[in-house]
């Protein structure tokens, strides 16, 4: 069945067959195969369709740089992913593979019509048309363009897999376990360095896996490799395979993505699919090797046309020959070795077409020995074949003329346009590159990070050179880490050194304007597209890239960038470095969102803070609302109640008897020290000096810009000790702000700040019966109105627990806030519920709290203020110490616009009959019949139904509102314009009689 499998070749496990399907057909491969190698073993080259022209395509590479052979892969519901590289995905049992971007099927694709009309779809064609008629863009053109674009189909189901992450600190990280990387790791580890070595493939060895016939230090390559890996293990080197270095970040932080289960037949329970390693390395060796370049000629994209090095890899690593009759076209010596290996494995080499005039003598001899026709000084001008290449047109090039064209039959065409040093990660560091004129390649220049580049990444070629260079890099890294080490040369017999030349598109005897010479295979960018872009004024490579989309496909230019640059620089008439190289950007290969999200999915996306009383609320049916990171009980609906009904009941119960509320989320800060009062004076608008011990006061905090930032009740427990409370959302911000001033502006103050937010559970008890519920539980404090008046604080015991007890009210009712150590919060709650049972004590949530405070005109920072509101705007001038020399934000209150008339000020708003609920956020106008855009006076900040008032009421910020009391304004809402009268914000018990108990 697998006619192209070569016996005795490859590293796949012939003892273990693995069955999979491709477009519904079942195939067999071996353990260790990729999808591509297994399909090629069955003679299947056609694996995909290109992006724009829907041209039939086969694999051109044998690694993650593959632009053509992209497939959808699946292992069942929720485990489908598009755009998987068939050349990198290992086979596993039951793997389902589908081809992409075709309809109805891969062999006959209607989208191929685009290919017939290619002259219309030139670079940037869409910028020039689809503009008329104007309305057609939305309704006709764009939907068509969109439907045609995109490669694979998107995932549709929830992903059952997990993703993980870890931090790793290492002395030396070696990226790439080819010959240079292994040599570097070994040299450093031998010198005593702690080393991590990683590689994106399933096994280490890099190009050695494709070159078994070289002899290193006296041993055959694979034997040498096994020995080295064993020694690395002995030396304790951490070796990671199937792991890609995706990005190189600041100060030697490298992100690695390790694929853990995609190659496994079965996924173990609790096993993550992929893991992000955030590695911090003291030194880094980048040994990422080099990528083979395609040659650019008409028809260079047909299935069966692939990189020579890829063919060599399929043969030696997977034991698959990619065809029976091959033509090689090359500008580099390396392809000769591919040709020889294939010839030795039984593929007929119809010709080696060398674009250079004088091939290396020894290579020519070797070709001759094998009876291979060597055509030096030749070019390829075209290919034929629809779903597989059938023949290649070769021609002589002399004196710039292309002559003597003839067709050579073949079933595969192996090309090599030289090699590009892989400098992606180096480029992430903002390291600079310099163009090497001899190599016609960019090489690393200045490095911004502590890293070394080794091997082919530095433009070196041949095993002795790269191995020795790797050794030198490992030694250099070890020395930099403080170890002693000596460089040594690693000797290689039967080495495969080589050089080559770099081309723009190959010369042709055809019409260049008609040539379909592809540069970016996936995005269907041809040489003439690039020349057109230059002709249209795109002179920078970034412009060329963006105009043509060259290098923007899923291989991110690994195949196309340098060829594109060569052609662009030729068209511009400048040297390549003057035209520029587009920046390589992370990730090195596309990486799943899941890997980046890691553990932060579902319930673990972000912390959900819960109070000690949360569990009680949950078991009593509370509805919750998120408030910053907390979840808070919103209301406690009884059977059949909606939110409005529940809130009305909770409000009434509290006003009529007693309500209980979990206020534990309030921020709490202990301010202690001899200068505590001075510190408070400077931070808050209020004066604190005269606040008595055992007394509490409402505190208002501004930003330095004069606008309200936070508020809360502050109790003085001792001469030098304040218990500060903040809003729930403001807790961390306020403490940060206080620390900032204390540490950097006023370090002379003797005062210390400690967060006690979570030390205390805080329960608010409000209502005329609050004292009756509480008093029986209190020890050590006289609870009478005389001994413990409104705005008092005391340390005592409540329900047997040590407590800080406040008599304060955010409702206008007799109110207490009891703070007990958090572990006792729930017990206290239950004790109060029990004590309050005879008064029908009613638990209430944040919504009722909001209504009750609004009835009293108390603001919620962030709801009735929005970062542009001053104390005066919010009716809080009384909270500003008039005699204080300074406090945070005071100077800003005197800025021109903050004292100008027409500021938005907080007022009450009452509609006529009280039946209308003004929407929060609704805008206020003087004349609802004016044309749009209307002059808006302000907006509704809070709006509720009040059980106590028997009507709806609202608060609003209105321009000059304080001067407008009694005036009528309008609130346009979707259901019509509502007239409303401006009032004060003291809606309920304006004289505060209810507190006098």
């Amino acid at each position, binding site marked *: 069945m697998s006619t192209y499998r070569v016996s005795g070749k490859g590293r796949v496990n012939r003892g273990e067959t693995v069955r999979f399907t491709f477009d519904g057909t079942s195939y067999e491969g071996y353990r260790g195969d990729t999808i591509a190698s297994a399909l090629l073993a069955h003679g299947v080259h056609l694996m995909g369709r290109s992006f724009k022209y829907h041209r039939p395509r086969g694999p051109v590479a044998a690694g993650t740089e593959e632009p053509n052979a992209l497939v959808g892969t699946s292992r069942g519901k929720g485990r489908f992913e598009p755009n998987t590289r068939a050349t990198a995905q290992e086979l596993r049992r039951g793997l389902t593979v589908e081809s992409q971007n075709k309809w109805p099927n891969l062999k006959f694709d209607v989208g191929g019509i685009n290919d017939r009309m290619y002259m219309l779809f030139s670079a940037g064609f869409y910028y020039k048309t689809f503009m008329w008629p104007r309305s057609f863009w939305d309704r006709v053109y764009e939907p068509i363009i969109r439907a045609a674009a995109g490669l694979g189909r998107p995932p549709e189901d929830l992903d059952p897999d997990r993703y993980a992450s870890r*931090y790793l600190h290492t002395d030396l990280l070696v990226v790439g376990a080819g010959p240079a990387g292994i040599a570097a790791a070994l040299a450093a580890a031998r010198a005593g360095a702690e080393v991590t070595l990683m590689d994106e493939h399933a096994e280490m060895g890099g190009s050695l896996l494709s070159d078994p016939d070289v002899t290193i230090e006296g041993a055959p390559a694979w034997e040498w490799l096994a020995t080295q890996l064993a020694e690395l293990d002995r030396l304790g080197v951490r070796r*990671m395979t199937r792991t890609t270095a995706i990005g190189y970040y600041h100060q030697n932080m490298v992100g690695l993505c390790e694929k853990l289960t995609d190659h496994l037949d079965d996924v*173990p329970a*609790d096993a993550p699919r992929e893991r992000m390693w955030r590695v911090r390395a003291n030194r880094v060796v980048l040994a990422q090797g080099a990528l083979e370049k395609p040659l650019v000629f008409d028809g260079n994209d047909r299935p069966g046309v692939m990189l020579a090095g890829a063919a060599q890899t399929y043969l030696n690593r997977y034991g698959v020959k990619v065809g029976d009759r091959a033509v090689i076209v090359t500008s580099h010596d390396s392809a000769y070795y591919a040709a020889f290996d294939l010839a030795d494995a039984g593929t007929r080499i119809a010709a080696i077409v060398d674009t250079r005039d004088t091939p290396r003598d020894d290579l020519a001899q070797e070709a001759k020995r094998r009876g291979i026709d060597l055509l030096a000084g030749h070019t390829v001008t075209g290919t034929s074949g629809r779903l597989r290449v059938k023949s290649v047109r070769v021609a002589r090039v002399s004196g710039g003329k292309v002559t003597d064209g003839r067709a050579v039959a073949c079933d595969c065409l192996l090309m090599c346009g030289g090699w590009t040093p892989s400098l992606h990660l180096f480029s992430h560091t903002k390291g600079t590159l310099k163009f090497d004129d001899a190599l016609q390649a960019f090489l690393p220049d200045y490095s911004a990070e502590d890293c070394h580049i080794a091997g082919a990444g530095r433009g070196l070629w041949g095993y002795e050179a790269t191995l020795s260079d790797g050794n030198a890099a490992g030694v250099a890294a070890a020395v930099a880490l403080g170890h002693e080490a000596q460089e040594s040369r690693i000797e290689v017999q039967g080495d495969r050194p080589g050089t080559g030349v770099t081309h723009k598109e190959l010369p042709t005897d055809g019409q260049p304007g008609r040539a379909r010479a592809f540069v970016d295979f996936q995005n269907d960018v041809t040489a003439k597209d690039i020349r057109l872009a230059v002709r249209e004024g795109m002179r920078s490579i970034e412009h060329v890239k963006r105009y043509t989309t060259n290098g923007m496909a899923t291989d991110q230019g690994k195949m196309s960038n340098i060829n594109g640059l060569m052609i662009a620089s030729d068209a511009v008439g400048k040297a390549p470095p003057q035209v520029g190289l587009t920046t390589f950007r992370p990730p090195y290969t596309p990486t799943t969102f899941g890997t980046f999200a890691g*553990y932060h999915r579902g319930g673990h996306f972000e912390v959900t803070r819960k109070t000690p009383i949360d569990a009680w609320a949950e078991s009593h049916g509370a509805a919750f609302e998120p408030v910053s990171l907390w979840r808070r009980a919103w209301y406690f609906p009884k059977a059949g109640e909606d939110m409005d009904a529940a809130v009305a009941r909770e409000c009434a119960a509290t006003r009529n008897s007693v309500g209980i509320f979990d206020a534990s989320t309030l921020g709490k800060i*202990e301010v202690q*020290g001899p200068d505590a009062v001075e510190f408070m004076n400077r931070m808050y608008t209020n004066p604190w000096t005269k606040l008595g011990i055992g007394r509490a006061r409402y505190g208002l905090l501004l930003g330095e810009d004069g606008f309200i930032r936070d508020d809360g009740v502050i109790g003085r427990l001792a001469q030098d000790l304040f218990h500060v409370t903040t809003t729930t959302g403001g807790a961390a911000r306020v403490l940060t702000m206080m620390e900032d001033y204390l540490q950097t502006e006023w370090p002379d103050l003797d*005062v210390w700040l400690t967060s006690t937010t979570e030390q205390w559970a805080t329960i608010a008890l409000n209502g005329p019966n609050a004292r009756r519920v509480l008093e029986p539980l209190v020890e050590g404090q006289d609870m009478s109105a005389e001994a413990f008046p409104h705005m008092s604080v005391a340390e005592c015991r409540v329900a047997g627990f040590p407590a800080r007890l406040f008599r304060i009210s955010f409702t206008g009712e007799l109110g207490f806030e009891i703070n007990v150590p958090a572990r006792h919060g729930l017990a206290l709650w239950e004790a109060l519920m029990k004590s309050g049972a005879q008064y029908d004590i009613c638990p209430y949530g944040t919504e009722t709290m909001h209504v009750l405070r609004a009835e009293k005109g108390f603001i919620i920072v962030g709801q009735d203020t929005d970062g542009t509101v001053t104390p005066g705007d919010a009716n809080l001038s009384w909270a500003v110490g008039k005699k204080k020399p300074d406090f945070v934000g005071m100077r800003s209150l005197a800025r021109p616009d903050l004292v100008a008339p027409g500021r938005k000020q907080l007022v009450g708003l009452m509609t006529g009959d009280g039946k209308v609920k003004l929407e929060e956020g609704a805008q206020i106008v003087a004349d609802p019949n004016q044309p749009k855009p209307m002059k808006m006076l302000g907006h509704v900040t809070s709006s509720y139904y009040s059980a106590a008032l028997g009507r709806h009421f609202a608060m609003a910020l209105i321009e000059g509102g304080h001067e407008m009391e009694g005036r009528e304004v309008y609130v346009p809402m979707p259901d019509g314009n509502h007239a409303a009268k401006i009032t004060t914000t003291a809606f309920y018990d304006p004289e505060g009689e209810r507190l006098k108990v």
Partner: protein
Amino acid sequence: MTNQKHDFPWVTIEDLAPDARFSLRVGEAGRDRAGLTLGLSLPTGVSNVVRHGERAVVCLGPDEWLVTAPEGERDAIVEAFATIYDQTPHSLVEISDRELTYRITGPAAFTLMTIGCPRDLSRLTPGRAVRTVFDGATVILWRDAEDAFRLDVWRSFAPHVRDLLDTGRAELAAGL
């Protein structure tokens, strides 16, 4: 981590019973006196721990110490510090209920900590403790031994941290 599978992925996560904990803040001038009050010499240098009987004091910042003691010693400590306040101004705030504590022990404890802690833990040698971050939550991380850690986590963040520790433990058990 293909060659690390032989690591015995064994790790235990325990909730510890609360002890008495205080945040102690005092300037340089009062440091000796404050130490004396605890019957020890306050450690200087962030991450250093000094123990005295069952009391342990870790230096968290230049003027900040975390004091831990058996619950029974709580009142004595409060009273002792109250008596020195006038001569030695300081701030002693009880935070026994602010944090919950997990103990993580076993050969894989170190690896488990690396799922949430960005620090180089090899530099936190046994016997030391620091305030740091674990999966976004501020924690006090104690390294009691090579393979024994403790995490003090703010009460409302603790379930989040615990959840990740449990996930990590399951991952280690799966061998991947």
